[in-house]
């Protein structure tokens, strides 16, 4: 029986690993990893701003950055088009869950560093940032959960890795060892859909789509995302509870 490239089922997520309060100087911080994709988020603030105080909400600033050693080839450290876009995308995904109107006129800074990249860095970043925000005591409606779903060939799958993101059945036919995967995935290319969800409201705060997909398949993919998001939220919740409620004293 042929399975996905890394032996997962179609709806199986990569191994999730969570570490909380890793940066001492930040108000809240977290590391979230989907398999080999590792994101670190740290939250600073709310701090005073010199803006007009009648601005009716707190000001959220997000900086997404990939470290030079996070990719197989060295990444240039200058923030490019991609980093600026992703910072904005992450900010817009988090903002609907935060009650920013409670601290008008202040600034909240979120710094996100990608320690290792293997597809799905923006989703790992959103998860890490929402964990860090909850640990920094900023009022929020719910944790924001993000994951990628997609269509590879003709198959709907959850949580794509880099190999699946680059899937192309035409290329695989030339590769003798990997051509067996075509019967699992089917003909075609890959479509990647990162989504962010507020689980309690079942509300999507981010949908991006890169590729081609039909209406019905998109519906199936989003339903799969919703189902998996609840699973990730449980993991996130358990990790916070585990971090706080262990009976041993921390020295």
């Amino acid at each position, binding site marked *: 029986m042929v399975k996905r490239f890394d032996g997962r089922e179609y709806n199986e997520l990569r191994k999730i690993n969570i570490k909380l309060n890793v940066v001492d100087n930040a108000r809240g911080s977290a590391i979230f990893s989907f398999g080999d994709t590792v994101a670190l988020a740290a939250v600073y603030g709310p701090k005073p701003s010199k803006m007009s105080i*009648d601005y009716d909400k707190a000001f959220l600033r997000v900086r997404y950055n990939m470290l030079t050693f996070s990719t197989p080839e060295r990444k240039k450290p200058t923030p490019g088009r991609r980093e600026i876009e992703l910072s904005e995308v992450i900010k817009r995904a988090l903002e609907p869950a935060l009650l920013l109107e409670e601290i008008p006129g202040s600034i909240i800074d979120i710094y996100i560093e990608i320690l290792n990249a293997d597809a799905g860095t923006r989703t790992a970043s959103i998860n890490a940032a929402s964990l860090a925000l*909850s640990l920094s*005591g900023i009022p929020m409606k719910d944790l924001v959960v993000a994951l990628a779903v997609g269509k590879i060939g003709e198959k709907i799958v959850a949580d794509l890795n880099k190999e699946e993101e680059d899937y192309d059945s035409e290329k695989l036919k030339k590769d003798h060892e990997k051509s067996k995967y075509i019967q699992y995935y089917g003909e075609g290319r890959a479509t990647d859909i990162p989504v962010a969800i507020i*689980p309690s409201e079942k509300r999507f705060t981010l949908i991006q789509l890169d590729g081609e997909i039909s209406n019905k398949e998109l519906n199936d993919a989003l339903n799969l995302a919703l189902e998996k998001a609840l699973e990730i939220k449980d993991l996130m919740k358990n990790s916070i509870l585990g971090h*706080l409620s262990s009976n041993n004293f921390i020295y």
Partner: protein
Amino acid sequence: MILIPGDSLKKKNINSYERENNYYSKYVLLVNEDKTTRLFGYYIPEVNDVVIGKVIDVLSNLWIIDINSPYMGKLSLKDSGSDPNDLYTYGDYILCQIVKVTKNKLIDLEIKKREKLNDGLILKVDPAKIPRLIGKNSSMLNSIKENLKIDIIIGKNGRIYLNGDVKDVSKAVDIIRFIINNSHKRGLTEKVKEILENK
């Protein structure tokens, strides 16, 4: 019991928000029957709070004070004539009291103690955990003071001033960190007493 943001609460309180007639938590909360306590948080200025402020700007007749909160404080010089820089200058720590908080979050301060707090150690901790550090009827604070002969001033904004013998201060820092890290756990007071007696 610990709740995270989005978990449902039975009753409305300051730590909850409302959606479709149900109440949900908006912070990481420790729930004990009806009482809810925030485990992490920032400092919200309130009238009569005593805080440790840091001078970040000096103007002709007032100082701008960072009070470790989302809003800046203002301390004005009553008798004009002297240069405010001679009294307090950039980077000085001073103990002040909040006199007035206006609707658009301008915070007026008053000096509580004339001397600067520059000769000791300033420790910054999570403001949500200050009540636990002081304890019931300041029991926790008094037991630290009795065992280690040092001066401690706690500002409600999460800054702590420590002064005394270097060895005692470093012991106190360890104990304060221990209390902050374990603030919500049971049997903390006994454990702290045990550590204090052993040192």
